[in-house]
C-alpha cells in the first residue's frame, strides 16, 4: 500500500539529488537546472501531502512554486548570459573575484 511516506521519501531523494547536483556541477546552467530539481522535489511532497490530507492548499502552493521556478530560470539565465558576455565563462567556480 502506497502511503504518504513513500512519496515523501521519493521527494527527499529528489531533493538530495538536486543538492548534490548543485555542489558537483560547475556550470551555471546546470546549477539552475539542479534548482529546478529541488523545486520539483518540494512540489512532489506538497502534492502528495495534499492528496493524503484531502485538501488542495498544497496544490495551490505548487502552482505558485512553479511560477517562481519559471521566473527563477528567466532571471538566472539572464545572469548566465551576462556571465558569458563579460567574463567569458559559464563555470561558476571560475567566477571568484569576490572571496575571503
Amino acid at each position, binding site marked *: 500500500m502506497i502511503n504518504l511516506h513513500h512519496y515523501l521519501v521519493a521527494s527527499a531523494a529528489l531533493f538530495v539529488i538536486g*543538492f548534490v547536483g*548543485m*555542489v*558537483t*556541477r*560547475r556550470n551555471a546552467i546546470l*546549477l539552475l537546472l539542479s534548482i529546478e530539481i529541488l523545486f520539483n522535489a518540494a512540489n512532489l511532497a506538497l502534492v502528495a501531502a495534499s492528496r493524503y490530507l484531502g485538501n488542495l492548499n498544497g496544490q495551490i502552493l505548487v502552482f505558485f512554486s512553479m511560477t517562481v521556478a519559471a521566473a527563477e530560470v528567466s532571471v538566472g539565465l539572464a545572469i548566465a548570459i551576462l556571465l558569458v558576455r563579460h567574463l567569458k565563462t559559464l563555470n*561558476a*567556480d571560475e*567566477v*571568484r*573575484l*569576490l*572571496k*575571503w
Partner: protein
Amino acid sequence: MVAGRLLTLAWVAWFAPLAACLMITLVGLQRRRRAATLAVGSLLLSFLCAVTLWWHSLHGAALPLQQAFSWIRFDGFEVPLGILLDPLSILMLLVVTGVGSAIFIYSTGYMHDDPGYPRYFACLSLFAFAMLGIVLADNWITLFISWELVGLASYLLIGFWYQRPAAADAGKKAFMVNRVADFGFLLGILLLWSVSDPLGGAHRTFALPALKDVIEHGYLPQNLLNIGALLIFCGVLGKSAQMPLHVWLPDAMEGPTPVSALIHAATMVAAGVYLLCRVFFLFDAAPIALSVVAWVGGITAFLAGCMAFVQNDLKRILAYSTLSQLGYMVMAAGLGGPVAAMYHLTTHACFKALLFLGAGSVIHALHEQEIWKMGGLLKTMPVTGGTFLIGAAALAGFPGLSGFWSKDEILALAWHQNWLLCIVAIVTAGLTALYMGRACFVVFFGQPRSHLPRPANHAGRGGHAHESPPVMTVPLVVLAVFTIIAGYLGIPEYLHQLHGVQVGFNEIVAVISVLAMSTGLWLAYQIYYRQVMTEQQLIQRGMAVYQALVDKLGFDTFYDWLVLRVQQTAAKLCSLFERFILIGTLVNGTGWVTRTAGGLLRLCQTGRVQFYVLVFLFGMTALIYVNVLR
C-alpha cells in the same frame, strides 16, 4: 607662668621657622636680604621662646605639659598633632635653636655669594621647623612626619648645588638610606599603634604618653616589645647614621658646610639619639633590643673612628668623627643611660658645630677641602684656628672641656654595665684624639702647602688664607664659649626625670680616658708635627688595614652591588617579564589569536558558489541531525 602660655610659646617656637619658609617661598625668592632676615629672625624667635621655656622649667613650671589637636579625625580613628614639653624636649629645643641660630647667622656670611641664597634659607627654615617637630612631638605620627620632613630638608640641602653630580647623588643617597630605615620605623609605629589599646578596639592611639602607660603597666609581652623596639631602632639607624646604614653621612658633606654643621653634625643626626631617649620607656622594657642598640653604637663608634683616621678631606674627617660620636651616644642609650646620651648629644652639638663652622671658614677662605693642601693656618686665621682647636680638644676629651665631662659619663656607664663595650669606647677615645690631632697638626701648624692659583673672584693672596668676616667668626666664638662651659651647666641634673641608669663621675674611668686621649695625641704629634714618620710609611706599614679603611670597609661597595646588581636585576627581570611575557605573549598573544582566528575563518569564504551550497547543505543536515535525531 601658666601652662597654656608655655605651650603657646612652644607652638610659636615650632611654627616660626615654617612661617619664614613659606614667606620666603611665596614672596622672597627674588629678594636675598629679606630671605636671610626672615630665616634668622624666625629662628632667633624660636631660640628666645626656648630660652624662656627653659627658664620657666628651672623655676618651677609644672612639667610635663602636653597639648594636641586632631589632625586626622573621624569616628573611631584619630591622628593628633601635639607637643610634649618636658626637660628632655626643652633641652633639645635649646640645642637646636641655639646652635641653629649661630649657624643661620654664620650662613649669611658663608653663602653670601651664592645665587640660590633665598632657596637656601627657605630650606634651612623648613629644616628647623621639621627638627623642632621631632623635638616637640608627643605622638608617633607627628614625630614621623617631622622625621620625614627633616629627611626632605636634608635631601634638598645636600643637593643644594644640584648641578654638581656628586652633590645630587649624595642627596639622593641620603634620602634613600633614610627611606630604607623608615620602612622599619613605620612598621614599628604600626605595630605599636595596634597594641596601644590593651583592650583592642577603638581606643588605640599614637600618643607616646599613652603607650608609656601601657608598657609600664606591663600589658605587652616582651617579644612584642623587642620587635617593636627594634623596628623603631631601624629609624634611628638611618637618621643617626649607625652601622650599617651610616654610608650616607660622609657623602652628605657635599652640601654647604653650614648645612653639614647644623644637620649632619649638631641636630638632625642626633635626632635618632633623641628618639631613643624620648621613647626610652619602650627600650627599657625590651632588653634584647637594648643590647642590640648598645652594640650597634659601640661598633659604629669604633669603626667610624678608624675610618676617620684615613680621610684626607677635612669635612669627611669631621663626618666620620660625627659617626663615631653618634655611636657613643647610641651606645650610651643602649647601655640604659639616656641621660648620658643626651648629655653627650648636647656638648657634641656645640663642639661639632664649632668644628664644622671652623672647617667651613677654612674652606670659605681657601676653596679647598683636602688637608694636605693646607697648613699653618693658625697664623693666617687666628680666630678660626683658635676656636677650631678648642673644639677639637673638646672632641678629643681634653679634661675640663665639655666633651670630657659628657664622654666620661658614657665611659663610666659602660664601665658599670658592660666591660667589653667599655674597652671599645676607650680605644675609640684614643682614636678620636689621634685623628683630631692629625687634622689639627696638618691644617693649622707647619707650613702652608697650597700652590693653588688664586681664585679669581676672591680677595687675598694665592693659597694664603685670610680671616673670615665677623658674621662668621662671631658664631665661632660664641660656640667656643659654649664648648667650654657646657660641662658645667648641670645638664644631667636637669634631665633627672628620665629613666635609666645614672652613674656619677668615675675617677678611674676619667684617668683611663685621659691616658687614652694623651696616647692618641702624642702619636699624632709625633707623626704629623715632628714627622718621625711620613704618611706614606704609615700606609706601607699597615697596607691591608689602611686599604680596607680607605675602602670604607666595603660598605659602599656592598650597597652599590645591592643597588646595581640585585635591585637593577630585579627591575630588569620584571621589565622583561612585562614586555615579553605579559605584553608580548599574553596581551598581544590574545590579539594575535583573535586576528588569526579571523584570518582562518575568512578562508571559509572561498568564493566558490558550490562550496557555499555545500556548507549550506552540511549546516542544514547538522541542524536536522542534532535537533531531530539526537
